[in-house]
């Protein structure tokens, strides 16, 4: 197996989970309703748990830094999350639609990884299954509520959030450097295959709740995250996220 390609795959998954987990935790205290405030906070903790587990695989299997150090003491360029997850939380509809599009992709990615020939990933995928399934269920319930059972305002706000975030979401599937090695070794079905699955499910769901996907959607403005190129939003996020850790990196927690 191509160890470098696997490492790259795990890094981007871990960083996606870490950054979206931190972003969505920003709803703590200011959610639209109390229960949703709790839901976003609770799912953020799930995501950070996923990131921790993936960083731990990197530590145990690849000799990378331990999970805490890896999460909190890298430079911006070393984070391989997609740009979509680092975007500010915006209004609630943006966070909700991002939550749906991102978690749908996570669900399909982890579903496929259950059959990965790389066992640590296959085992993690099975372990995280329930949480990610619920994340999608949560997102779909809200989308359904606001787009199909809401009013004109809620529907149009969800539609415009979808128009805005769909091209960003396409960049989740930016390919790694050695995608074919992962595919040939049976580690991962590959970003293109995943994208096709995701598009089919997202368009079916959106059609069902009366939303239309933007006709011309182009990911090119949002690519580069997987290579360490980020928007101006990541640096302030990292500064906030790592602030306490960096006060004393040797502290025992």
């Amino acid at each position, binding site marked *: 197996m191509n160890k470098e390609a696997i490492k790259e795959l795990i890094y981007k998954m871990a960083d996606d989970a870490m950054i979206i987990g931190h972003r969505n935790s920003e709803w703590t*205290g200011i959610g639209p309703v109390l*229960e949703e405030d*709790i*839901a976003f906070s609770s799912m953020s903790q799930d995501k950070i748990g996923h990131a921790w587990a993936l960083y731990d695989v990197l530590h145990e299997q690849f000799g990378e830094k331990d999970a805490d150090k890896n999460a909190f003491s890298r430079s911006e360029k070393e984070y391989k999350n997609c740009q979509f997850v680092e975007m500010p939380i915006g209004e609630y509809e943006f966070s909700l639609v991002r939550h749906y599009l991102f978690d749908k992709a996570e669900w399909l990615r982890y579903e496929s990884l259950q059959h990965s020939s790389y066992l640590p990933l296959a085992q993690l995928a099975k372990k995280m299954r329930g949480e990610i399934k619920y994340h999608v*269920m949560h997102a779909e*319930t809200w989308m359904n*509520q606001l787009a199909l*059972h809401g009013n004109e305002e809620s529907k149009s706000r969800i539609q415009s959030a979808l128009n805005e975030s769909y091209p960003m979401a396409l960049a989740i599937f930016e390919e790694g450097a050695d995608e074919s090695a992962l595919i040939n070794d049976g580690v991962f079905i590959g970003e293109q295959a995943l994208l096709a699955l995701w598009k089919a499910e997202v368009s079916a769901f959106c059609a069902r709740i009366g939303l239309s996907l933007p006709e011309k959607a182009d990911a090119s403005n949002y690519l580069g995250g997987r290579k360490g190129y980020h928007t101006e939003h990541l640096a302030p996020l990292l500064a906030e996220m790592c602030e306490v850790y960096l006060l004393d990196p040797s502290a025992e927690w």
Partner: protein
Amino acid sequence: MNESLDPRVNRLDDLHKVAGEGEANTHWATYEVFHQDKRGKQVVHVGIVHAPGPEMALVFAKEQYARRKFTSNLWVVKSSEVYTYAHEDEDIFETVPEKTFREPGFYKVRDRIEAYKNKITG
């Protein structure tokens, strides 16, 4: 820029922006939540949630009542759908105390069961 290390403090402006926009909540219905910790076991009432519909009520119920304990399933029932006695009829549950013949001990069932057990286990 606030010097606090608590990010929530630095987002207080957002909080003030959001406050006062919560009027719509008052139109939501109340749902009774029932929790089941194991398949086949009884479903126990644990509290209520407010939600715009049954699907959302289930999502909220999961957050409120299933995060910190083993859960096999949850039920939600719209409170207005629950058929109950009126408060003023509470007195129908009061029973006159002089009725020991209604209590199981009166029949000395236990003595007979014990006697039977002793007989078969010898």
